[in-house]
């Protein structure tokens, strides 16, 4: 566990917030798709638990600066308190946690990153790593409305191709992000493609289904409630075809084929 001082805090539209923290321990070794458990120091007991947040970015090359950023969408008390922090405040963090994306078979493939809402936070490091390795990377980014799109410039700066879909049509294509995904799945042979997705569960379910129809490899980064983040509470189980798996240690990234989507419990009503 580390205590990390806040070194920057920037508000974005759509209740999004970028928090920069100095933490060499985490910044120096976080991999794409990993996350931290972040909490307020020395606070009273409500909120009680730390909050899971993807490592949005770390310095490049690693080790240079030790600043890591978190992209936070304010949805409840925990995220509100984190977003209200100012320079000099401290955050208590555990991490990096989770398996992260598997890029061992990414070489030579077209990587299609499909992000929804604040799910974008989980794929920035992935985009950067893949494009630095010289792979072809596309970001397909969906949101309710234009102002919910956050971090677009960071991806554009990487020089990767970015396409946007908004449900209300206020930017990019109108409709769900799956609409702009489908043409990709048609355009390339299945074995030349790799899909990585993070976003609301209904979106990931739809992306998984599409990828499976086209027999394309797809990794999903799931979101579940988490109490600990390091495999002891057993609260973050995900139903997979063979067993329950822990999102925090076995995941949060799973092969889309393994996940049994569960509309009853996976909060589409909350974060969607």
């Amino acid at each position, binding site marked *: *566990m580390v205590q990390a001082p806040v070194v920057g805090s920037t508000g974005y539209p759509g209740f999004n917030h970028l928090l920069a923290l100095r933490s060499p321990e985490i910044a120096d070794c976080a991999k794409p798709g990993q996350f931290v458990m972040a*909490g307020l120091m020395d606070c*009273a*007991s*409500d*909120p*009680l*638990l*730390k909050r899971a947040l993807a490592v949005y970015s770390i310095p490049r090359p690693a080790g240079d600066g030790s600043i890591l950023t978190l992209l936070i969408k304010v949805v409840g008390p925990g995220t509100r308190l984190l977003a209200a922090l100012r320079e000099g405040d401290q955050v*208590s963090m*555990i991490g990096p946690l989770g398996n992260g994306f598997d890029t061992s078979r990414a070489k030579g493939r077209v990587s299609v990153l499909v992000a929804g809402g604040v799910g974008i936070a989980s794929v920035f490091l992935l985009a950067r790593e893949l494009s630095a390795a010289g792979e072809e990377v596309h970001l397909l980014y969906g949101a309710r409305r234009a102002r919910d799109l956050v971090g677009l410039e960071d991806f554009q700066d990487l020089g990767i191709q970015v396409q946007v879909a908004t449900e209300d049509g206020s930017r990019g294509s109108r409709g769900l992000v799956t609409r702009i995904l489908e043409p990709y799945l048609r355009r390339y042979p299945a074995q030349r493609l790799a899909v990585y997705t993070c976003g609301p569960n209904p979106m990931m379910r739809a992306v998984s289904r599409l990828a499976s129809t086209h027999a394309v490899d797809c990794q999903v980064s799931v979101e*579940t*409630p*988490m*109490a*600990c983040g*390091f*495999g*002891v*509470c*057993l*609260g*973050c*189980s*995900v*139903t997979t075809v063979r*067993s*329950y798996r822990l999102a925090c240690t076995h995941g949060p990234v799973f092969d889309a084929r393994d996940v049994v989507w*569960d509309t*009853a*419990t*996976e*909060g589409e*009503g*909350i974060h969607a």
Partner: protein
Amino acid sequence: MPDPVSLAVKISGIRFKNPVLTASGTFGYGLEFTRFFDISRLGGFCTKGLSLLPRPGNPPGRIFETPSGMLNAIGLENVGVEAFISDKLPRLEPYGTHVIANIFGKSIGEFTAITDRLNPCPKVSALELNISCPNITEGGIEFGHDPDLTFQVVQAVTRVSAKPVWVKLSPNVTDIRIFARACQEAGADAISLVNTFVGMSVDVHRRRPMISNVTAGLSGPAIRPLAVRLVHQVAASVEIPVIGIGGIATTRDALEFLIAGARAVQLGTANFSDPLASLKVVQGLEEYCRSHGIRDISQISGSLRTRERPVPSRAASGDA
């Protein structure tokens, strides 16, 4: 040089280097915490609840945070006693801390079968029986909600156990003293108190339970006042030691339980948000003793003072 402070306590014949343990289901099999600190610093820890066979646990929707607390219905997911003995226990050898095996069964036979399996394991110092689960042979009544069943299961286990037997009681009863006395009479060596309180939360947008199991166990600071009271009540009604559990996160919290009558404490939910919480309590207790001139932590146990207070002369006639 300051006077040395003794934090050691003795429970059920075992000497603990300090009265700080961690609670079942919140500390994995101990190994998960070695990355955070040297678990040999603890008095001991309780394993995740072990059943005869491995259990997959409940479907997702297992936890939900509530004000100063959390609900959980993990469904007692665990590797099973065999895998614990073969995969976990050997890796715990290097750590100089007491391993308390928390066990549960759906019948008395399951309880004794698990006990038999653990009897030959020297690294297990004691058993902690979780009797807050339904007894299938008795039609699903919880062992812990029926004093007779409580007596029977505890007696059956103490008869076959080669190790001290602690019983972890459910707090969801009208008079917990009856259960504590049943345990004592059945030969239990200590009482662990409390397990979680039954609760529930609703997703008001989807009008569904937040937890797949509908009801779940409430833990965390929210329940601390309830747990302190039960510990105080039980400590006054049995001779065997009581181990206090429920919402302990800081030294102050641990002291509440000790002063109210507990011989030792366990930290549960606090391990999630601060994996170092138990270690901090060990250090904090030492500082407390030092600054309050207490040589031996056992002096604190049950040292709660209650005394008379002045009342207004006309209070009884009630003009307030």
